[in-house]
């Protein structure tokens, strides 16, 4: 089947066509078995209020109404196809959620679909999230997602010439803030080592490191090196205590 008779205008990709039907069913069942699924979808009038107010719909071939409709129709082929790239257009603003007369949460459904796509190592996740590696490295190792030193002007030429001025004497600027906030340039704040160690335990216990390994093995190795180094530092500190 190429595309869909209404709504989903994209032709079904070769990637999707080449996957055995049973595998596609397994993936969609994994999405539907998430405990949140039943709290995110109730019914649909096809009113389109969600899509009309969706920011991503204005610039991408993306419709939250389509997400809800395909689940209600159990359209495995289209849903599986959406999991390659379609779902990554969503801005996660949840305008659809607050507007829906049925209190459906299409943005929430997308969050589950993305999570399942990463966990099952969809090729599209590897391509789409490649430039996102810096954030993953920072958050997985330090507990902060953003720091002042990540805002190099080279990465943000569209933000204008002021970015270069901002980065000049960055450490001195941060030292001059008269509160203990924003002082560290490598992290948003200095997350204490024992807190980071607790976070690593959370990542291990909840399978997040495994997700990372599937997403980007090289990044995973770099992250694990830092994690293990910090764990050794902590153990040494603990022994000294």
């Amino acid at each position, binding site marked *: 089947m190429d595309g869909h008779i209404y709504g989903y205008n994209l032709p079904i990709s070769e990637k999707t066509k080449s996957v055995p039907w049973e595998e596609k069913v397994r993936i969609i069942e994994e999405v539907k078995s998430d405990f949140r699924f039943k709290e995110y979808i109730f019914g649909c009038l096809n009113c389109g209020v969600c899509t009309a107010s969706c920011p991503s719909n204005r610039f991408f071939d993306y419709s939250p109404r389509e997400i809800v409709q395909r689940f209600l129709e159990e359209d495995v082929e289209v849903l599986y196809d959406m999991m390659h790239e379609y779902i990554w257009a969503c801005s996660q603003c949840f305008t659809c959620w607050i507007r829906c007369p049925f209190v459906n949460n299409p943005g929430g459904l997308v969050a589950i679909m993305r999570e399942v796509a990463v966990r099952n190592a969809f090729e599209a996740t590897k391509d789409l999230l490649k430039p996102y590696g810096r954030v993953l490295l920072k958050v997985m190792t330090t*507990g902060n997602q953003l720091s002042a030193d990540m805002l190099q002007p080279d990465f943000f030429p569209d933000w204008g010439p*002021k970015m270069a001025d901002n980065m000049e004497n960055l450490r001195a600027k941060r030292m001059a803030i*008269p509160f203990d906030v924003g002082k560290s340039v490598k992290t948003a704040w200095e997350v204490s080592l024992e807190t980071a160690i607790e976070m690593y335990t959370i990542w291990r216990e909840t399978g997040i490191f495994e997700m990372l390994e599937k997403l980007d093995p090289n990044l995973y190795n770099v992250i694990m090196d830092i994690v293990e180094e910090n764990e050794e530092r902590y153990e040494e500190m603990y022994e000294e205590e």
Partner: protein
Amino acid sequence: MAHGHHKEGSILMYPEKPPFPLKEYHAHYDHIFEMMEELEAKGEILIHRITEEHQPVHVYTRTGRIKVIPTNKLWHHKSCGQCGNIPGYPASVFWFMNKFGLDYLNEPHQTSCTAWNYHGSGTSNPVALAAVWLRNMHQAWKTGYYPLIHCGTSFGSYKETREQLIMNKELRDAVKPILKKLGRLTEDGRIVIPQEVVHYSEWVHAMRYKIKELYEKEGKAKGIDVSNVRVAIHNACHTYKMIADDYPYDPEVFNGQRPAASTAVMQALGAQVVDYSTWYDCCGFGFRHILTEREFTRSFAIQRKLKVIYEEVKADVIITHDTGCTTTFEKNQWIGKAHGMFYPVAVMSDVMFAALACGAHPFKVVQLYWNCSAYEPLLEKMGITNWRELKKEWEDTVKYIAELEKAGKYDELMEFFKTYDLYEPYSRTSTGMPKASATAAMPLFKS
């Protein structure tokens, strides 16, 4: 539970009469407060309650529920985006806390919520998000301070995670062994959940009349006047669209039909709140998009918000109350010149604008030098006409610090900081552990 009926001592409260016209909602979010009390009675959870020492202020939510906002003895759960990219944002919060003589704890035993990562990359799951949240909340409870969430996404994610935890035994059962391993349950094995998840903008909302007093006493004495300033409000999606029934609404703000925080404090200060047709739209941040698909972010920000605000209402400033929106609007103006779509307008959060109105230093406290968009016309209009001298003072300070550090003159640097007007020189920490960072040892300055 109907209006005017509540059990003595219950955390679920309503006023005698609905405070503004209410719609019938399908979602029964408020019920989770009764469920929390039931779970506490069964010994599954412990509710971290807001008490008199927190100097609570009552506000209304969209359902007319009374939400209790603690205003004192607060544990600052900081925002990575604010600390990293908008340093004047948390600095303005701390400036107000000190001005009002409030007790608070600003400590390093906290991580980000990690929800930005989840909404951007999908590389996490509800159990991990819940464990991260509950670890942070347990830390706040252990210190005796009540958590105040700086980031809008943390706030939205935490509200949702709390609802999921209360409604789903399977999630509680999954997260409990992890918390036990971390030593993050109570001594009798309960999960600690705060009575209210509270965003800093709710604190500003609750404190708006005190902020007004400070403005009249100290801001106006400096010649500052905001009565002619046209402010356009942008509410953050993750504060009021995520778990929409748990954010302040007020009869004085569009008769309770729009979110009240930020608008109400602008009204209290006497600024001119101007309405515009796309108030409902998001900013275009998109979590992943701002970093890796910026053509969407800037197109949306320019076409749906900046252009509209510029052409429809000629606002002097866009007032925000979250990290991503502030960055998106503020950093995506310059590029518009390339397409003849340059709509200059100052951008800052409610607390930064309020701090300026009350006389805070525009650069030392509010850190406006970091802005890529023009803020100078706004300062002029507010009556902060000496901003050039204040900017030079700031730049000279930065230059002096940089030179001393470059020359390795750490003793002189320490001497300088002894005389520098530090509002809060060092964080207090709540454990006896030596301070060590998760990054390689990187002291602020050697001693």
